[in-house]
């Protein structure tokens, strides 16, 4: 059955606080469709976030929702999941939340392969605090703390997740709504830790400051449309050709022992010994 968003929203909290054109809302809807498709029981879904514009999402959703501290959502989620492995635990985080202050929990959640789905609403900026540079801000781009252009290569969320050992890793964009939905869906049904790097657009705090690239919020979506390239297609291109491109696709999808299950097995082992 097709989704009725209203069933998943806390309507009295709407309209949400996001700016006009902020694509965090697009990702939210993709998440809801994925949850709907997976047929999860709302009482068993927990959505957890840190602090930031992206992290305001759970407040609008009619699940068990937890808005924690900046960067720490995955650690809270780990406690919840281990305490109640039957719950579906989904974490949503901004790029700052996920890989700046939250970087340590990010890599350890990847390594632990605990059955949590993380969606990084990656808009390459600190939206909530007014547009400071984030670790995913592109080299040369202007932000309120990189007025002369950001120094250095941005962190690649996908590579980081791969390096840290995540078992499901994918990327899509707010433009590619159906692809995004399907990756989130795959992440949710994946047994183990899943990371979806969801490219999002913040015109207010980022686009506006980089007019040479984006004249409007629509330009930011157009940019995604024009520059997304699937990893299979990318394989045939050279380094130079891929410069500035957004690689999308499923980068890894493997089955490895999941943390809570391993814990349960350990308990069984001990019991049997006794």
């Amino acid at each position, binding site marked *: 059955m097709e989704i009725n968003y209203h069933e998943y929203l806390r309507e009295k909290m709407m309209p949400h*606080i996001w*700016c006009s054109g902020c694509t965090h809302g697009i990702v939210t809807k993709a998440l809801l469709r994925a949850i709907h498709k997976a047929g999860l029981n709302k009482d068993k879904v927990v959505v957890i976030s840190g602090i930031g*514009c992206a992290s305001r999402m759970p407040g609008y959703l009619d699940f068990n929702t937890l808005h924690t501290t900046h960067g720490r959502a995955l650690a809270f989620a780990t406690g919840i999941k281990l305490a109640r492995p039957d719950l579906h635990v989904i974490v949503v985080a901004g790029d700052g939340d996920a890989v700046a202050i939250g970087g340590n929990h990010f890599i350890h959640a990847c390594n632990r392969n605990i059955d949590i789905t993380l969606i990084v609403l990656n808009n390459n900026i600190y939206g*909530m605090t*007014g547009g400071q540079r984030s670790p995913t801000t592109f080299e040369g781009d202007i932000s309120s703390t990189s007025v002369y252009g950001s120094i250095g290569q941005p962190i690649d969320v996908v590579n980081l997740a791969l390096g840290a050992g995540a078992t499901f890793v994918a990327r899509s964009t707010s433009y590619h709504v159906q692809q995004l939905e399907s990756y989130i869906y795959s992440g949710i049904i994946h047994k183990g830790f899943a990371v979806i790097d969801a490219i999002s657009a913040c015109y*207010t705090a980022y686009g506006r400051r980089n007019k040479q690239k984006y004249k409007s919020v629509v330009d930011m979506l157009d940019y995604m449309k024009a520059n997304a390239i699937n990893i299979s297609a990318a394989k045939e291109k050279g380094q130079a050709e891929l410069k500035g491109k957004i690689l999308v696709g499923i980068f890894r999808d493997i089955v490895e022992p999941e943390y809570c299950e391993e814990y349960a097995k350990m308990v069984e082992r001990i019991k049997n010994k006794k």
Partner: protein
Amino acid sequence: MSFRYEIRLSGSGGQGLILLGIILGETAAIYEGKNAVQSQSYGPEARGGMSKSDVIISDSEIDYPKAYNVDFLLTLTQQSFDKYTQEVKKGATVLYDSTLVHTTREGDYRLIGLPLNDTAIKDIGKSMVINIVSLGAIIKLSNIVKVENAEKALLKRVPRGTEELNKKAFYAGVNLVEKL
């Protein structure tokens, strides 16, 4: 005794009320040797929603930096009119935008409606400059700073290349009052 003049600028985010407050304060503080304090209240996210900017002007030390005995209130939305007219001083001036505020209420204040937004759109061609139109009107109505000083402050603050536009908007505001 010394004077303390409180201006409250209210409306919605995006109407440029903070810049308006800054120019008012700067005029008084830098070009007229007075003291001035400007402050604003932020919503949870500092974007959209109600916006409020207070400017206090005085010839002596300003202690409390927020307006609490408002002498002059600018309201550019219905919501802000409803909320802030309740909190002005007896005899204060209340300036509202005559198209954006539909329902006004009389009180112990001098109520003045001006087509600030329309002027910005029609005369200048940019609703964005509603704050600068308002600046002209406020100064002309309150006489709290001199028009020529405000012009100086204004021209220093606005982005290069927009000076003429802003000057035009400013005097459009001044004229609205002169025509009253």
